[in-house]
């Protein structure tokens, strides 16, 4: 494979062809190649590794940062809004008065302010892929993670998506995120598995000459047949989705909302079971787009739910001892305007939004970035952080080199990320 790089490019500038990918392997459940399966076979079950996981929680519609974490008590009222800030358990760290539970655990999360997006319309494409939509469709982060799956135990899918997903794009369908509504889930759990007599019968009849079998695809077929039969006999994936396995008390803490309640608990269970990337919708689904009546909607409908469920999720993360292993990232497609509009609402504001992060063994209890007195100081940093910087942080945790190039369907090498600097303050 030709790369753009000099001879000593090494890891920094390494590139692989599609074909080499197949050989090199290293992929999620559905995308397992033969090489993986053989490697898996060669390994006896090992201790649980220090594999890390990412949970992405979408705030679908774009959340008003000034009324949550980027509070501006000294700003004029047309910016400041109705809510008052309150102190948290971290000195100097203020949050909105409608996040009282969050105020008690500010040491357990970090807020990155001034996150910039390209997207200004309602599309989670950038939130999912890191890129603005263009001629070349980019893969979702879950598909990249499936493609570069480095876990030792691959009995769970590398990526599970229960929300919008930009899809695998040029990585090919085998790197699609596992969806609980998708065909694989149905195939695994709807038809009752394969009786032993059928397994035996297939074995006795599947005898295309052995010599012909010495071909990668045919070998892969055999291996996948075995692996599929094993999977069909296991309920591990289904159980990870099943929140009824949790004590009532725990479910109660998260709340019974489907979005931002059950989904959050499912996400944590999936990460705990070994899924590398889980994508879900968070609290306040579809209500975040507060062009009108921002304060009423936030106060009455969104923030109480948000405070309860996300607080539950973060404390649960620590209670389960997963705070070093699992990183939760909560964000929407963009921020909302600091200046309040005439309908007491806030409009789309790609210049500055926020990401709430918890766990991952990263430095918690900080606010990163400064958006100025009124929250519209978008030149506060010479280079504000973007979704790509956030993804670079994820890839760093997962051990994926974001400068690897992947050929798109035109044969053009595309970097996993163009902006590959991680969010330094977290380390």
């Amino acid at each position, binding site marked *: 494979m030709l790369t753009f790089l000099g001879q000593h490019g090494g890891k920094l500038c390494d590139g692989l062809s599609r074909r080499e990918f197949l050989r090199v392997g290293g992929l999620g459940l559905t995308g397992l190649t033969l090489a993986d399966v053989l490697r898996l076979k060669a390994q006896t079950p090992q201790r649980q590794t220090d594999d890390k996981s990412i949970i992405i929680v979408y705030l679908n519609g774009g959340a008003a940062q000034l009324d949550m974490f980027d509070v501006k008590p000294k700003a004029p009222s047309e910016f400041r809004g109705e809510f008052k800030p309150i102190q948290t358990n971290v000195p100097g760290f203020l949050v909105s008065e409608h996040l009282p539970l969050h105020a008690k655990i500010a040491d357990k999360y970090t807020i990155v302010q001034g996150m910039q997006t390209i997207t200004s319309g309602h599309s989670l494409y950038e939130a999912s892929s890191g890129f603005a939509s263009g001629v070349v469709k980019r893969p979702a982060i879950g598909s990249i993670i499936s493609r570069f799956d480095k876990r030792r135990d691959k009995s769970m899918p590398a990526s599970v998506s229960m929300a919008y997903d930009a899809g695998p794009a040029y990585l090919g369908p085998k790197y699609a995120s596992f969806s609980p509504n998708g065909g694989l889930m149905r195939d695994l759990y709807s038809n009752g598995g394969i009786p032993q007599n059928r397994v035996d*019968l297939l074995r006795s009849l599947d005898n295309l000459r052995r*010599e012909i*079998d010495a071909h990668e695809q045919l070998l892969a077929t055999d291996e996948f047949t075995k692996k599929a039969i094993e999977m069909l006999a296991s309920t591990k994936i289904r159980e990870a989705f099943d929140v009824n396995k949790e004590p009532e008390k725990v479910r109660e803490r998260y709340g019974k909302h489907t979005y931002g309640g059950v989904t959050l608990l499912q996400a944590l269970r999936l990460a705990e079971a070994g899924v590398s990337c889980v994508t879900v919708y968070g609290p306040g689904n579809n209500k975040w787009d507060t062009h009108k009546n921002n304060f009423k909607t936030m106060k009455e409908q969104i923030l109480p739910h948000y405070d309860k469920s996300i607080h539950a999720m973060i404390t649960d993360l620590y209670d389960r001892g997963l705070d070093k292993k699992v990183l939760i990232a909560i964000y929407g497609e963009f921020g909302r305007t600091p200046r309040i509009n005439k309908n007491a609402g806030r409009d789309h504001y790609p210049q500055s939004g926020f990401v709430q992060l918890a766990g991952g063994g990263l430095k918690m209890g900080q606010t990163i970035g400064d958006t100025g007195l009124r929250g519209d100081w978008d030149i506060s940093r010479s280079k504000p952080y973007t979704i790509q910087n956030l993804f670079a942080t994820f890839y760093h945790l997962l051990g994926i080199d974001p400068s690897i190039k992947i050929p798109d369907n035109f044969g053009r090498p595309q970097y996993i990320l163009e902006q590959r600097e991680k969010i330094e303050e977290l380390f």
Partner: protein
Amino acid sequence: MRKRFSFLIGLGISFVLPLAGRAADKVPPFGKGSLIALTAIPQKIELNGVDACQQLIVTGLYANNGVRDLTRSATCRSENTAVATVDTQARVTAVADGATTIVVKADGQTIRVPVVVSGTRGEQKINFTNDIIPVLTKLGCNTGACHGKAEGQNGFKLSLLGFEPQVDYHALVRESRGRRVIPTASERSLLLLKPVGAIGHGGGKRLEVGSPEYRILKRWLAAGMPFGNSDDPKVVAISVTPQHRILDVKAQQQLAVTAHYSDGSKVDATQMAEFRTNDSLLLDVDKDGLVTTLGQRGEGSIMVRYQGLVTVFRATIPQETPALAFPKASNLIDEHVFAKLRALGIPPSALCTDGEFIRRASLDITGTLPTAEEAAKFIADKDPKKREKLVDELLQRPAYAAYFALKWGDILRVRGGTRDNKKGNGKKPAVDPIHKRADEFHAWIRKSLQENKPYDQFVREVLTAQGPTSGSGVQPQILWYLELKTPERLVDDTAQAFLGTRIQCAQCHHHPFEKWSQDDYWGLAAFFARIQWQAVGKDKKLRPVRFREGGRMGQVLGYDPKGKLEDRHGKVYDKPRALDGDPIDVPENVDPRQKLADWMASPENPFFAKALVNRYWGHFFGRGLVDPLDDLRITNPPSNPDLLEALAQDFIRSKFDLKHLVRTICTSTTYQLSSLPNDHNRGDMKHHARFLPRRLPAEVLLDAVDQVTGSPTEFTAMGGYKFPKGTRAIELPDAYVSDYFLTVFGKPKRESACECERETDVTLAQRVHLLNGSTVSRKLGSRVARLMADKRPEDEKIKDIYLSFFARYPTADELGAIKQYLAERSKDERTRSAAYSDILWALINTKEFIFNH
């Protein structure tokens, strides 16, 4: 023998080897036995200037008429090291003006290479483009991962791979208040401090203090950073020595690269050239141009790049096989394939059986399994010409056109759109739904293939489509324009789909692995410069639409005789220029796209016919002669260049007759080889010594399941519309189909012109679906019912099943196993029916069913 060798030395350039493909039946030799003669290239060396160097290539001729590279094993010594030195890799470097001799010794033989050094005194001329850019490239400074990326790296931006020297010169010398370069204290320039790691450098240490690269940068700084004169010679070509070698399975070969300048001078560029292996399992190459074979056999190549120019070294690593038995060659394909196999020492497999042939040909030509009756009849047929006749007959079937329309639907992006079942309430929509266009274009493709429209005509009609996109008078091919919209995307697809060339890179920068520049790209795009999207304005007249809004349903594809294109730097392109051609003046009353079609179909076009035959080769053999099959370029050489050329010429001679091409391929002995390997061709994946099994494509596999179970799938479009009953998967017009089976087995969404968008691998999700999914479980019933009602003896019924699944009769073992299973499990009607169901389920899940073999 001796005589021929001295003649070769007389040529002084490289050995003429018994080239792959033209050799006699015996395996071509590499160096074995005793050393007969020793040679070095070049025969004499002239070095001009400080640090000038020349790579020697030392080669031995051996008793068996084979050659071996001795560059590293020979001992080289300079008779006067004050004039020139020579190192262990036989690289001669100038020290001071004068003359000396390099004495080369190997295996008791000695040769002498005279060296003359000049120009080391006085001022050294340095040209930024010729001398400094290659250093930046070799060190990796200007790669896409580092300073070469669009926004640069940490405030310092170079043009990608140094294709824009002016820009780079400005960035180095002028930007940042000139702090990157300090001529009076060159060692303290950031240009040197950063790459040697003396101060923080995100890219790490890339340069050794005192290395030749370091020295030339330092000299350039000390000389006051000259850019050079505009009349300084430029590199116009590069060559590699040797170009091709037959190598042992454990061998090394040193390469030497020569840069040819516009003034006719030649300079060794081995040290500054970049080397890449194209076949990482076969060959490795280091930064000095030393190629190492890795223990595998076959053919591979090394790409060499210097100053935007590329060339390749090809290596053949044959295996030593005793006597090679070859089947009869049927046509030109076999002549070339067998010649290559002989050169590689790979004997082909035997011919496949009749059953295998009818299954293989039916699947590949018509996307359809043969029925049990067809298979039985074909196997029993005694006609020696029956295979040829079958191919002819298959080509006449409607399924041939349906299946290839599926293929062309992928390439031409017949994507379509959602469709629902609503009849409407009498109101006609303002514009036609896009799926209507998809249906028409699909029907047009299918009809063109059925009628066997000459391929050049087919492409011309696509390229020159025009007029309304909705209402009456719509040309079906307009969908291609509706999908692609802009000249840039049109040229991308034109190049990839019809010329087998990926030229997209050159839209913004020189293609990194090809000679294509932005001028080449925009010249080709200019053939589309006069298309103009128009819409009916308020005054009911057609008006051009704004650039970004072109290509919507309801608009008209019109013509603007003054249309031209601009690249992102504002450079205007109004004259189209074909690849490797001259700019063409096209009168205003002539659509340049006609000229484009003319150029494509001209017999001299080096891309058009090759791209097509390579694409079709890929269809029938699972990989192109050039692979990926739409990536024809110098640096990605075909596995069999002679065959590609011959097949393309044959296609041109046939007047672009697609059925003729299919017939030629399918009646070749090569296509009829068994997939069962012999002892010597097991490892071959590239040269067609045997037929490589391929998983059936999504649509073909689903149709096959439908056919053997007698239970047709009813397809639903996204949006809810139900396609007419009896529509087969291969007949679906567009990509807006909701069917999990097709999705999981890789039906593409048609978002690109690349056939690689179609998933052809086996995945775990596919296995789970076939083993436990609803598609198969729902379908078994109807065939089971037929089997239950069939009163014939069990043997007959099982034979029928085997013929319909595999186009063969069951073996005695298989027959026994199935009868035993039935007997054991048939306690009553219900269990008997379950047992049949089990058997069908198992056979659908065999590799023999899922694969074309």
